[in-house]
């Protein structure tokens, strides 16, 4: 691979663009295709398939042995609530390769000091999500257990097909939340997509352990998502 191509690849990845590289295994010649929707046949079909599945692999195109590598934007975690759990999650997520944003309108919680180097927005989710909508490559974890802050983003996450939707709170808290979401027009079936209480059941007791169990649950949801429907 040429150095110019590597720089192009890294730049595209840094800006959350999907990239496919095509390497001729006989010569080592490589091509870097950035969010390319217009690759001619017969290579185009293989490129489209790689982008859909996210899987790299060797392909034979008209007698040429090619290797297609795929670099999809890393999944993003949006955390509602700049709480103790979020502090731990903000440190764990980058290690696992997940981008992370924290939203909390309570400026006492959302401080630079508590979240050094983390993308933190001290504003209401209603306003932030208008600018940066949720999508299928986003996981939403609501951890304030304050309905005024959590309910709107949870509802948006269900509507936007986030690959993961989780909410902190006891079963009792969640039962009330379910009632409120139904009043907001969500069906029971939709609401069952919400992981609550949040996190895989590993007996997590501390904020850091709850963050770890939540991240594990997010990874599980991402790796097992249904690629066919795009979720």
């Amino acid at each position, binding site marked *: *691979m040429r*150095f110019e191509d*590597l720089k192009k690849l*890294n730049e595209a990845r840094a800006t959350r663009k999907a990239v496919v590289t095509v390497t001729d*295994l006989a010569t*080592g010649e490589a091509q870097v295709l950035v969010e390319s929707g217009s690759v001619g046949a017969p290579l185009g079909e293989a490129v489209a398939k790689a982008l859909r599945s996210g899987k790299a692999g060797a392909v034979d195109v008209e007698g040429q042995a090619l290797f297609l*590598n795929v670099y999809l934007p890393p999944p993003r975690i949006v955390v509602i609530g700049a709480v103790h759990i979020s502090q731990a999650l903000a440190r764990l997520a*980058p290690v696992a*390769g997940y981008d992370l944003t924290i939203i909390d309108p309570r400026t006492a919680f959302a401080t630079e000091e508590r979240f050094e180097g983390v993308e933190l927005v001290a504003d209401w989710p209603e306003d932030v999500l208008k600018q940066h909508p949720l999508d299928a490559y986003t996981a939403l974890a609501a951890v304030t257990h304050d309905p005024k802050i959590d309910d709107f983003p949870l509802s948006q996450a269900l509507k936007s097909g986030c690959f993961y939707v989780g909410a902190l709170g006891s079963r009792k808290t969640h039962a009330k939340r379910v009632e409120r979401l139904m009043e907001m027009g969500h069906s029971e079936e939709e609401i069952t997509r919400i992981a609550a209480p949040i996190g895989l059941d590993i007996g997590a007791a501390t904020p850091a352990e709850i963050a770890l169990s939540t991240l594990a649950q997010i990874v599980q949801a991402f790796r097992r998502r249904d690629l066919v429907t795009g979720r």
Partner: protein
Amino acid sequence: MTAPDMLDPLKTAETWKSDGREVAIATVVETWGSAPRQAGSHLVIDGEGNFEGSVSGGCVEGAVITEALDVIASGNAKMLEFGVADETAWRVGLSCGGRIQVFVERLG
């Protein structure tokens, strides 16, 4: 440098090359059976044998690094294969029983 940068071998390769170091990139292109790293995974190596990333669970990296130094010296890309059926199985085979193909090229 933040955590994800440290764990991103392709960014490391760019930094190394910018610093004037010779770099080889090893990529898993095919796997059969149980393989620890999926196709597309990278290991990057510099002329001194420093490396970042992985192509297996630590089973064959040593051999790939040795080959990478050859590739850096000659400039010719190589396809390597590792697995239980391989003659190198005792030394650097995959203990998990899988088989992998690794493409090693010099960053030009």
